[in-house]
């Protein structure tokens, strides 16, 4: 039986003012090594100024089988969008 080194998801903030964005994964035994590996692998070309790592096993994802019940009911709620409301042009941009 081969021991497996845990997988981590890596998130990088390209610069202040932006959110951390998922960029890929790495393997590491613990969070300190994971942060170093993320730095060495994913920031070699000035890609960011802050790193998050999260153990892949700690991510809870929505069930793709529930995608329809999760995400389709919003489709007909068009009154949530500004274009649903008609405002005369002379009122100006709103």
């Amino acid at each position, binding site marked *: 039986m*081969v*021991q*497996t*080194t845990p*997988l981590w998801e890596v998130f990088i903030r390209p610069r202040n003012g932006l959110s951390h964005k998922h*960029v*890929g*994964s*790495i*393997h*590491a*035994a*613990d969070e300190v*090594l994971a942060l170093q590996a993320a730095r060495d*692998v994913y920031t*070699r*070309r000035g890609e960011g100024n802050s790193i998050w790592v999260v153990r892949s096993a700690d991510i809870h*994802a929505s069930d*793709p089988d529930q995608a329809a019940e999760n995400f389709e009911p919003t489709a007909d709620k068009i009154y949530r969008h500004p274009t649903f409301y008609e405002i005369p042009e002379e009122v100006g941009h709103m």
Partner: protein
Amino acid sequence: MYSQGLIGADGRTTESEEFLARFQARIDAEEKIEPTDAMPEGYRRTLVRQIGQHAHSEIVGMLPEGNWITRAPSLRRKAALLAKVQDEGGHGLYLYCAAETLGVSREEMTEELLSGKAKYSSIFNYPTLSWADIGIIGWLVDGAAIMNQIPLCRCSFGPYARAMIRVCKEESFHQRQGYELCMSLAFGTPEQKAMVQDALNRWWWPSIMMFGPHDADSQHSDQSMAWKIKRFSNDELRQKFIDATVPQAEYLGLTLPDPDLKWNEEKGGYDHGPIDWSEFWRVVKGQGPMARDRIKARKKAWDDGAWVREAALAHAEKRRARKMAAE
């Protein structure tokens, strides 16, 4: 670098026709498939195999170029080569991670590589015999790989496509550094020029074999095309590569080692001489000149590193235990 026409994909699948049609409709609509989506078993298997082969190629590909890191003839070249070989390792890493989203671990894929079960690009089973090989590999092998890889950025499987976007971005310097290196030799001393011509002679045919067998002989290619795992045929890509490369060789004043290579006005591309497919299959099947050495080197790195990986895991366990005790 270095994806190769997929060797031996098996796209057979047993799902209902209705399921397959629904899946195909998503693909046809250019929807990306994500790891948790329902997908035909054949699609999953083909991807695991292709991404795995691609990742292995990157990792094994570190060895022939790594062979010259310690002998690079200037400090500038040494830094560039080291950064390039490092990139190849990074590409292998991104690709292993993309394959892992399909439920296969890096350790499993590594074992398959080391046991000889998994294939990798045939090109790395040739030796790098002179410094000029480093230039030629960058120019031709990375050039061929870019042709292959740019379409993969639009592959239907999301994680693979995303990994390839990152790979292609990083790779853009590889071919340029290779060509620039070839320029330094082609326009250098007579010895340097002879060195780069010799390297070109040795790498030309293996490079154009990298695109894989002719379309007519390429099993399973149609299914991969339909699923948009592959977006151009082997021959289309090979033609594109040759057409781009011939004028580049002319600029260097080098001769491509194919007497039958000539412009075909009618098709608007170059015709080339017959490819020795027996050599190709021999090398793919593990009888390349460096095949044993490559796997042996990877196996040594993996085996010698086992105690380090074990120590890191053991230490992580201790840290966890200490943290829990403190809470």
